[in-house]
């Protein structure tokens, strides 16, 4: 029995303010949605891939394609992103390959999500998996997870598990997605003149580029070597430690690979000789070796590859952390040779 008196519309008591507020909120949210989907500020174009996680978003989308049938899949952070050229791997091994590496923000978590999505989407299990993370990546913990908010499709459940339902839903609210954008405009109103509205187009262009290059963007690493004081300082003083969140998902990846009988090649990150010397002098080196040893003990079938001696020339790098085109060609060949040995 409906309580009829609730539905008698008394216009004197009409909640005008409530309705106008709702309308304004909807308008503003709609506007924010359009902004977050279509616009970016030209000056920070370089940051688009970082902040908006376009690459992660695209690769996540590709990881869920039912027709995927790669023999080799690569996961990692910016080291892997700049280091594994799947075209070269395919040429050497005749196995189809795709590089799912992303940038440094929560790349272990992102890698696990994509790997899980990949194995869920297709029945064709890959034979090999290449993992390559820089040392710094292991430091990234759960608090950084919300920066991966673009990475929601297909991963809602683990986001809920890690962040809670409320927070995950919050990540979908347009105003919050466009927050960075609004903040920049508030700080510098002149940036209004640099707004570009071709983000969707960029997304499409980047997607076709990534699909064509099998997950590797060739123009990313054709940069001559340069290093900053800060990078050298970091190599000298950095304290290697592993965040339990990053470790949990690395462990989950290795476990998943083991269950699906995928051979895992764990590529230790390399660096130019002078940076490596600094690294070897630090306590960090021993801690990292201990960590790798612990992985070796835990997963006896894990193949650990250390190409430091073969990749120590400065000419192979674009900076102290990332290989350039020449370096990635060499690393990809070395990884391919190992795959061929194992086939």
């Amino acid at each position, binding site marked *: 029995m409906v309580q009829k008196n*609730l539905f008698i519309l008394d216009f004197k008591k009409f909640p005008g303010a*409530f309705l106008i*507020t709702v309308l304004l909120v909807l308008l503003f949210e709609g506007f924010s949605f359009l902004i977050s989907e279509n616009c970016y500020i030209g000056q920070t174009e370089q940051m688009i891939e970082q902040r908006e996680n376009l690459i992660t978003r695209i690769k996540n989308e590709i990881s869920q394609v039912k027709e995927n049938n790669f023999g080799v899949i690569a996961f990692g952070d910016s080291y892997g992103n700049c280091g594994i050229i799947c075209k070269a791997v395919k040429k050497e091994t005749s196995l189809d390959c795709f590089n799912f590496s992303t940038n440094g923000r929560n790349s272990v978590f992102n890698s696990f999500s994509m790997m899980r999505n990949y194995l869920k989407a297709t029945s064709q299990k890959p034979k090999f998996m290449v993992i390559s993370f820089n040392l710094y990546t292991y430091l990234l913990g759960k608090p950084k997870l919300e920066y991966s908010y673009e990475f929601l499709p297909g991963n809602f459940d683990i986001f809920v598990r890690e962040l*809670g339902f409320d*927070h995950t839903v919050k990540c979908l609210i347009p105003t919050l997605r466009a*927050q960075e954008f609004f903040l920049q405009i508030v700080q510098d109103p002149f940036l209004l003149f640099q707004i570009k509205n071709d983000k969707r187009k960029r997304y499409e262009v980047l997607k076709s580029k990534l699909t064509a290059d099998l997950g590797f963007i060739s123009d990313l690493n054709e940069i001559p070597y340069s290093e900053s004081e800060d990078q050298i300082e970091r190599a000298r003083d950095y304290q290697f430690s592993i965040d339990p969140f990053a470790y949990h998902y690395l462990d989950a990846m290795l476990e998943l690979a083991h269950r699906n009988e995928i051979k895992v090649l764990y590529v230790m990150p390399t660096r130019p000789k002078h940076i490596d010397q600094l690294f070897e002098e630090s306590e960090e080196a021993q801690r990292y070796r201990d960590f790798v040893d612990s992985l070796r003990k835990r997963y006896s079938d894990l193949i650990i590859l250390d190409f430091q001696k073969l990749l120590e020339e400065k000419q192979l790098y674009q900076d102290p952390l990332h290989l350039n085109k020449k370096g990635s060609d060499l690393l990809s060949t070395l990884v391919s040779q190992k795959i061929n040995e194992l086939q």
Partner: protein
Amino acid sequence: MLFNSFQFAVFFVIVFTLYLLFNHKWQNRMLFVASCLFYGTWDWRFLFLMFTSISVDYFCAIRIGQSDDEKVRKRFLVLSIVVNLSILGFFKYFNFFTDSLQTFIHYLRFPFHVRFLNIILPLGISFYTFEAMSYVIDVYKRKVEPTKHYLDYALFVTYFPHLIAGPIMRAKDLLPQIAFPRTLSLTKFYEGCYLIFWGLFQKIFVADNLAKVVDPVFTSGESYHGAKIVLALYAFAFQIYCDFDGYSNIARGLGKCMGFDIMVNFNLPYLSTNPREFWQRWHISLSSWLRDYLYIPLGGNQRSGLITFRNIIITFLLGGLWHGANWTFVLFGAYHGLLLILYQSLLPLLKKLSVPRAIKIIFFFHFICFGWLIFRAQSASQLLELLKALILNFQFVADAGLKQMASKIIFFTWVVVLVNLLQFKRNDLITVFRLNWATKVIFYLTCFYLILIFGVSGAKEFIYFRF
């Protein structure tokens, strides 16, 4: 299931939809099932405990109502009170008393060890026990007729908006609303929505953000910094107020949407000028309960001054202990009891002073804050450390950390302070609801985006759930 969670929003939408579709009889049945589900999501095992208490009280009240023999009536009243207090005492205070006993035995150097039990504190036990006790006492005093319908009584205790953290409703106020069909109206519905919105703002934007300012000061192992403690106390004063008032507003709002009138639990407590006024404005349902069922039966202020002071102290000590099984709560009660006694004693002198109300409010606010120091301290030893830092070793260095803390407190409290002042000026707790539409739109938008952008996500428990 917390009021400030999405799960609860979904739960309430379903409950409210069904509520609109059902007639009075089925509304009550559905609300009872929903309330059990609401409580059961936390721990279904304690539903049995709650129903033991409900069944005993229902039965005792009926027997008290049926009998004219004073002895029989008293016997059932005592039975009900003993059962209720035994349950409360065991689940809430067993380990506290055994721990205190152990300390005492240790102090006397007896080689004897008291056994501790791993007891979980059932959610809302202090609230529903007091509510049930007031019902049986009121029936005994013939203030209320015992209800013959078990479901009505069970819904009176379990009704989900007030089950976990009050307000502690009286049977004379709530039972008739359950027994007779309720009237729904758009005005009530809008008022309810406003109260829910305002309650959520108080909790998510103010209380949960202030918790981040307060907690590090009280939980850090580092030495305490006097100025930081003062700021943390200001922040805690608003945290606990917005947390509990936020909960009470949401409870009232939910009730209003369904046609229930749940009592006001807070009436601008920080605008009080003295302890008596404060307790008439703070946690009104508990202070009026303690007044009616403890202070007045003890004799109230009807006898000599000393007896009155004794009654005040007993009432406040037990009121303090009601909050939790910790000596700090007993001290909190004692502090407020003594404050009230001091005020009563100095009243003739104070009446001669003509001090502006604003000054009195600010002055008394600091006494309230000192009480929060006792309340917030995790142990008596921490309280001592805090007092040392505050009194003997007070340092004021306006460093960046302190400035940041102060600016955070201002940022998270300005809306509440403004609204409270407006409520006080117009003597209307829902004055915002009565502002012109343009001001309301600005207010709603400001609050909404403050919640959205700065609100703490991930539902955080309300402080009074622990009590």
